[in-house]
């Protein structure tokens, strides 16, 4: 059965290109995608995840304010009783010269995987297959570094 994933751009960010491409890629890979679009609040992500009985939430952010926008998100998911895989990707900090530091901070916020803005959709899909235990090929497994 197809797994459902929630997709959206958090906060006041209006950058839509990345999630548009990701939506196409995820659909082609056999996922049921709920694309919440740009300027999506934490509450909207949580409501959508609950309503769609989703397996994963993929958050995109490109304007540099993701850390503020994501404060308390994991806690709210836990309060809602949603044990769900969470990824975030994009330009996650203003002037991100050290991505490992950015990754560490977002892991502390509770994200299972953190991707930079250069990530190919295939990498996110391979990671999802691994984390959601969907059968995958060796080649894809090797790509996963997020």
């Amino acid at each position, binding site marked *: 059965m197809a797994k459902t994933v929630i997709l959206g751009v958090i906060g006041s960010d209006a950058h839509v290109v990345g999630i*548009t*491409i990701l939506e196409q890629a995820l659909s082609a890979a056999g996922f049921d995608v709920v694309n919440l679009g740009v300027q999506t609040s934490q509450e909207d992500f949580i409501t959508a995840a609950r309503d769609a009985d989703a397996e994963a939430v993929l958050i995109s952010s490109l304007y540099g304010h993701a850390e503020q926008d994501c404060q308390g998100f994991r806690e709210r998911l836990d309060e809602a009783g949603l044990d769900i895989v969470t990824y975030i990707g994009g330009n996650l900090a203003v002037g991100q010269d050290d991505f490992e530091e950015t990754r560490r901070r977002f892991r502390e916020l509770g994200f299972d995987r953190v991707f930079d803005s250069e990530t190919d959709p295939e990498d996110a899909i391979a990671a999802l297959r691994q984390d959601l235990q969907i059968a995958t090929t060796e080649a894809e497994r090797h790509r996963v570094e997020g």
Partner: protein
Amino acid sequence: MLRDEPIPGEQLRRIDEEIRGNWPTGQAVDFEEAIAFHESLPASKRFADVLEAAEKPLLQPRAGVPRLDDQIDLLEHLQNAGQADLLPTTIDSYTRDNEYEKAQQGLDDARADGEDTLNGFPAVNHGVDGCRELIEALDAPIEVRHGTPDARLLASITFAGGFQSFEGGPISYNIPYTKEHDLEETIRHWQFVDRLAGAYTERGVRINREPFGPLTGTLVPPCIAIAVMVIEGMLAVTQGVRSITLGYGQVGNLVQDVAALHALRSLGEEYLGDDVAVTTVFHEWMGGFPPDEARANGVIGLGGMTAAVAQPDKVITKSPQEFQGVPTKEANAAGLRTTRQLVDMVIEQNVQLVGVDRELNLIQKASRELIEEVLALGDGDVAQGTLAAFDSGALDVPFAPSDSAKGDVLPARDDDGRIRIFEFADLALSDDVKEIHRNRLDSRADTEGRDQTFRMVADDVDAISDGKLIGRPQGGD
């Protein structure tokens, strides 16, 4: 019901008073006194006259900082070191969201410690007097550039403040910029802006209006951009605007860009009528830039080359620091000089490109189909037709964040790097046009030995910043 009809004078005054009552600086606007101020300006600051009289493309950068004295310094630099013909004032994001209190806080912070937390010039907070000080300090005409869905107060204050050109429109400043603004409401708000520009125009102060051509700035097919430009132009003309600059963003294929600029001008003149001065503006590449100033200069150079061949009335330049966001004033001036070098070297060569006529015919046919569908859906009323067309997807913009557009159309480059439509969704194009697009994309798929998939779209989005035009598959991938 929303109609494409002029706002009656009494209603214009009522809305104007209400809008200006919403923020203290609105009180300082006095229409008669503003007309007198405009009449006092020298001919060199009359935006429409300067633009329409130009014999070769005029160059204009983007630029805006919060403090008035800094904005004057910045524009003086672009005028002197960059030799800009026309100047901009780019408005900050809070003002674009009508958050004048936050803009005030940002302006106060900038004044207190020099820290620029605003990304532009908060013209509403500077008020009529602040705007006039800016207009008086510079020699060239200055345009207001922004991205504001509800720009009524901004227009009221900047028109009274001496600005004679104002970017934006109900579609072009809604669909690419916001998620939840209702298109009908945005059209009403821009009818007010255009009617106000029309009121000045009737008194001999022609306010130039410039719909924002690049839209989402991401591989926008020329026919979609041109249809939106002509529609916004028609809405503005109804309200009395008589100087309109239609825009188009560089896609990077020389033949297609030249053809699109010619199509934009001819369809603009055809649909907007004889008593309107139609000019065109070419935006240098609005997509992702290479993260390398030398390569970025190459992209800018191609823009200058294209402008020299197509000869639009105006070029909006980019800076080699585009990748990093807001450029230094030196980099901004460098983008102007690079563009001018290319324009001046090429413009007298009378370059004739093979294939422009064919591409021009295709773009004109497709643009006309979209425009005519909008008119048909509105039963002749362009405002109603616009609502119906975006609602059904008959008119659509790729990568649109707005809930008011379907955003289902997807573009991809063909084997020559021209933008074609990969996913038409409900776009109102004929089977003839669709077949040409499909065939062209098939050729590319053959060349690359892969199927037409969204992967081409994704590759094309990144191609120019990666150093190419077309997102071909890489070896070993």
